[in-house]
């Protein structure tokens, strides 16, 4: 029992990073980024490449991966998504447009990665040692990935709640129209949030690759999980996302070890349906739509 809970918590660290990335993109930049999982997979591949080609530790590799993902997502926002934001007459129109545009990005990026790496599964051995918690053993790589995720998430929290820029990001999340009245550059802040979200997701991917077998076409599944975590936690809500990631990690691990490893998505959906039926506004539900 403790084994399931601890494994679930360790897994939820990376889930939380991915979901935080998505919640920034959707909650602040108002872009439902369905290509988020592809950023994650790209993070996996870059970490793999750095480790196997240059023997660079994946944790140190984050120093390369995060800025690269930040720049890449900034460019995507400015080139592809800002025109849609300008064109949209209302929120619903932007939602449909951004969903379709990010589907396009999803397939484009996935297709490019499939061309580059093929459909095979990749993995590498990093810190594949035993680490004992409460008397049972866990992979040291999982523990290290969890610790790194906690540090990054804490950094994000400090940025959002202790800096002027972070306050601006939260203001845009709350209401873009009012934010522009208090001299916040909404368009620039949205780009920043989108790029930051991409960087977080790529970090999640790099950490995931240390203990998980990945391939070029698995992005959608992770987008799906991240979306469900974001909805559970409440859109744009950082604490909610972390809590929802914990719930999802534990529920998945429980179903995988008690019933069948092939049913993890069913566990995710079970939680999702409960949330939709009882708390569609999220765990800490701020507003009613």
């Amino acid at each position, binding site marked *: 029992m403790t084994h399931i809970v601890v494994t679930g918590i360790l897994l939820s660290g990376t889930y939380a990073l991915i979901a935080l990335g998505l919640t920034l993109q959707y909650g602040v930049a108002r872009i439902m980024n369905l290509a988020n999982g592809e950023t994650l997979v790209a993070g996996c591949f870059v970490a793999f490449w750095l480790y196997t080609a240059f023997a660079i530790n994946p944790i140190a590799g984050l120093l390369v991966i995060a800025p690269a993902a930040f720049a890449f997502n900034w460019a995507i926002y400015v080139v592809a998504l800002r025109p849609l934001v300008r064109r949209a007459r209302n929120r619903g129109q932007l939602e449909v447009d951004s*969903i379709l545009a990010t589907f396009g990005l999803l*397939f484009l990026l*996935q*297709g490019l990665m499939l061309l580059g790496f093929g459909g095979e599964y990749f993995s590498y051995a990093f810190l594949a040692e035993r680490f004992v918690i409460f008397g049972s053993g866990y992979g040291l790589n999982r523990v290290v990935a969890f610790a790194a995720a906690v540090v990054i998430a804490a950094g994000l929290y400090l940025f959002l709640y202790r800096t002027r820029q972070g306050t601006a990001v939260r203001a845009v999340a709350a209401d873009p129209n009012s934010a522009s009245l208090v001299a916040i550059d909404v368009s620039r802040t949205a780009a920043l949030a989108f790029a930051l979200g991409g960087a977080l997701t790529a970090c999640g991917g790099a950490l995931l690759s240390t203990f998980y077998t990945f391939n070029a076409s698995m992005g959608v599944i992770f987008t799906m999980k991240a979306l469900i975590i974001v909805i559970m936690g409440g859109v744009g809500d950082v604490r909610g996302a972390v809590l929802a990631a914990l719930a999802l990690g534990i529920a998945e691990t429980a179903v995988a070890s008690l019933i069948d490893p092939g049913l993890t998505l069913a566990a995710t959906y079970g939680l999702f349906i409960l949330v939709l039926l009882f708390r569609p506004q999220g765990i800490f539900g701020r507003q009613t739509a």
Partner: protein
Amino acid sequence: MSAVSAGEIRVGLAGAVVVALAACLPLVDQGFYLSISVNIVLYAALCTAWTLFSGPTHYVSLATAAFFGVGTYSVALWIDQLPFPALVAGGALAGAALAGVVGVATLRLSGVYFVIFTLGLAELVRQIVTWAQAKFTTRVGLYVFTDFTEKHIYWMLLALAVAVFLAGWLINRSRLGFAMRIIGNDETVARHVGIDTARAKILLFMVSGAFIAIAGAISAPRYGYIQPPSAFNPMISFLVVIMALLGGTSRLWGPLVGVVPFVIAMDLISARFPNHMPIVMGLAFLAIVYLLPHGVTGRLEQVWTRLRNRRALAVGAERTA
């Protein structure tokens, strides 16, 4: 219900002629052209059924593969015990039931929840079917042996496409269709004039899901050997969205304009560059969003009204001169 207008009778007759001609195809060719036509008719039925719901509501449904797979499995599981028509009807009911469950869970909320839910639905049903098969039976794949050949499947799918078109036309003329148009224009207004918006959307989604499941059921004998990954192939969902939006969803025949060229293009691309398919799909999505936001038919209509306005202006200028 208003009377059928002369224009509608003309369109109906023209459609009947086209369908009659299309039905003669297997008499001419049984090879390549028949096989690609089966795909065209299949996607015509799927995309039109998709548009029944997603056209007026603007909700991007990705549940097509789930309904299709449910239909396929309804046939595959009991083909040795029950007659084929009964299984097709069963598949339709199963598709409608699944659509009803999804609708009740998501359609009372905003559109995003619906998109997310349908995005993973095919994968969810696939996992459950795989798990149930492994647990309760010994075999993973199922054989579907029937006397149907390619041409029988072609005729059945053609009949299905006609049925979807007729259903779409009837719905447009009914109270439900009228309600859907109001919901599509402004949901708040719809609610204020007393339309039960959730009920209308769920009903329409069930009709759409039932038709897609029938298409899956009819396709089962074509595959012969059915496994969860092929029956619940998520690509079907995305291809349907691309083709329908490419054609345009504001008219009943809009998706057809996208289906015919895209199926032919897909056939060429998957034969010559099989590894480039995702890239082509990605570019197709981007092209739709940035270049053809209302589809080909929407763009044609724009051009048409602009030309007519210009002509009206020119005539007006002549008169004043």
